[in-house]
């Protein structure tokens, strides 16, 4: 019997340029088995007629995709995109100054970074439930406002679009802070000093030097926030209730209680299409290769 290790080594010896590709093998197999295959199954389901008791029956139909264009579902889609956009913008506005502060705070940097990702240490479910205790009619916020005499009846905070947004932002913020932090941290402070020396006031230094040079981090952060927001279902489920449904809840319902797997699959592909569009946008902005981050700023490589 052939020793598999020797076989691989012989193959590498025969293909001297290939070891790099070989390194991708394990991850590639994993993705093929647990990502690509399920996706293909989903794709197949999305164009097959619905079975009587869940599942699908053989055949081909586009009715599920057609059904998705019903105003009811388009409304959910619109809300999903809208909330995800708002969440991304809110995260960006909150994260950029935070990331700047962390990147420029010297030795405390690691501590602050640690604090920024601390919420990750608990499950998102726990964090979201904690939010309910904060936002519900008899929750902390309402009680404080009532006690202070600022309001007479509890404010409706929970099961609103605002509650969903707050929950989404809370969960996504570290994903915005980290990439922006990385790009600010990489920025040579001498560039800002050079700009100041050349006459740029603080706003000009930000818009003309800092922002364009940290754009790759901003783009990465936006992607990392926007894409998961599109697919989120725990936060809208717990904080938004039935009236603030996002597309993730729709998909979950179709696979769960509604037992309409083909429609759930079609909705899932609709989300995927949105994600693709977002990705393409960022790639166009950033360039597919890493040249945005590869700008040499330091002394050159010889004359």
């Amino acid at each position, binding site marked *: 019997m052939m020793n598999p290790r020797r076989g691989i080594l012989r193959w590498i010896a025969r293909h001297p340029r290939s070891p790099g590709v070989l390194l991708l093998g394990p991850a590639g197999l994993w993705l093929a088995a647990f990502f690509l295959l399920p996706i293909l199954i989903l794709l197949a389901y999305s164009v097959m007629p619905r079975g009587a008791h869940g599942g699908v029956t053989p055949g081909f139909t586009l009715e599920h995709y057609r059904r998705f264009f019903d105003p009811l579902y388009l409304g959910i889609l619109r809300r999903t995109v809208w909330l995800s956009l708002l969440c991304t913008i809110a995260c960006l506005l909150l994260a950029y100054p935070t990331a700047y502060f962390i990147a420029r705070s010297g030795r405390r940097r690691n501590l602050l970074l640690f604090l920024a990702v601390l919420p990750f240490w608990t499950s998102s479910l726990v964090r979201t439930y904690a939010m309910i205790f904060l936002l519900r009619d008899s929750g902390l916020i309402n009680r404080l406002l009532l006690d202070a005499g600022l309001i007479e009846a509890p404010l409706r905070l929970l099961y609103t679009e605002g509650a969903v947004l707050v929950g989404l932002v809370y969960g996504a913020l570290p994903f915005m802070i980290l990439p922006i932090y990385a790009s600010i941290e990489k920025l*040579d402070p*001498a*560039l800002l*000093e*050079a*700009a*100041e*020396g*050349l*006459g*740029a*006031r603080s706003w*000009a230094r930000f818009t*003309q*030097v800092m922002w*364009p*040079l940290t754009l790759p981090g901003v783009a990465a952060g936006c992607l990392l926030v926007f894409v998961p927001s599109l697919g989120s279902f725990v936060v809208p489920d717990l904080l938004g209730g039935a009236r603030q449904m996002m597309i993730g809840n729709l998909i979950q319902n179709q696979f769960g209680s509604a037992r309409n797997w083909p429609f759930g699959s079609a909705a899932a592909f609709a989300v995927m299409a949105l994600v693709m569009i977002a990705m393409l946008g960022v790639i166009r902005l950033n360039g597919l290769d890493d040249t945005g981050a*590869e*700008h*040499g*700023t*330091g*002394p*050159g*490589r*010889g*004359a």
Partner: protein
Amino acid sequence: MPASVPDLPAVEFRGVAKRYGATPAVRDLSFTVARGEFFSLLGPSGCGKTTTLRLLAGFETPDEGEIRLFGEIVNQRRPYERDLAMVFQSYALFPHLSVERNVAFGLEQRKRPAAEIRDRVRAALELVRLDPGVYATRQPSQLSGGQRQRVALARALVLEPRVLLLDEPLGALDLKLRKEMQVELKALNQQLGVTFIHVTHDQEEALAMSDRIAVMDQAEIAQLGTPAEIYENPRTAFVADFIGEANFLEGRAAGRTERQDDKAAGRQEERWELESAAGAFKIPATTGISVGDDVRIAIRPEWLDLCAPDDAPAGENAVPATVQGLAYLGETIHVRVALANGQIMVIALRNEGQLIKPLAWARGDRCMVVWRPEDCQVLEG
């Protein structure tokens, strides 16, 4: 900005101090730089030279003292209110902007008309000998180190500053390019009449370019003077050691002697006779020495010579030594010798062509190290 009186110095520091926490970065710094001067701040890393430059640029604010530019106190002025420009050690070119936009940056901030910006950018690039037709549209990442250096220079000079600050501008270039840029910087200084303040840790670079040098050590100026003064007349062991190479000898003052052999010149110069474990030697009479004092002197390797043990010229210092080794440096040959007390000295002999006239010395040879009594520097402290 009010017109400045012509005879005021370009730069003046008066008792300037800056601390980071408890550590002084510079203390009680006072010096002036004349208009058009090429002035170098020279010292090892951590000596305060970069802080001095950053104080002048306005990136740091002094804790004490006054900084004046053309007579006006600028302590509280922002960097862009000081009418100076800086070339950074890393060049700090904006990586997302083309060469042209980099050079135009300062003019754009000043809202100059587009046509004027175009002309001045072109002129600045030509001044630093970069062909605008070739380089204007390039990105900094497409340039070599030397070209980036030139762009950084053009970006500063295009603003026609009255003072140009250079922070280790040549540090990242290879030796040949560095020498070339030294000549060019000096020429620009003379051509433009702009005051250059230059920070470096490279003593050779400072000697080659500067009108005057401030040697800094431990947050203070150790010595300020022309390159010749600094090199030939170092006041402290630090300066002697940092600038060029130096041999140090220590001896105890034994007494004064009259110089005997210079009757032709009609002078009777006094000498101090010093005794040391390596042998006795004479130094020029210096005030402030009394019998029994320990005196430290510095002698440059090229001021020393070697001769056979019984061949020492009269009137010169001669101490016995043994040759330890030779180093062939091209222009000179460095001979390492050990004195009687074991101390090592380095003697630089002119290379007269080893292939034609090989050096007579070899490892293990006994010899005398000789030098004229006046060819040494008595150090303070």
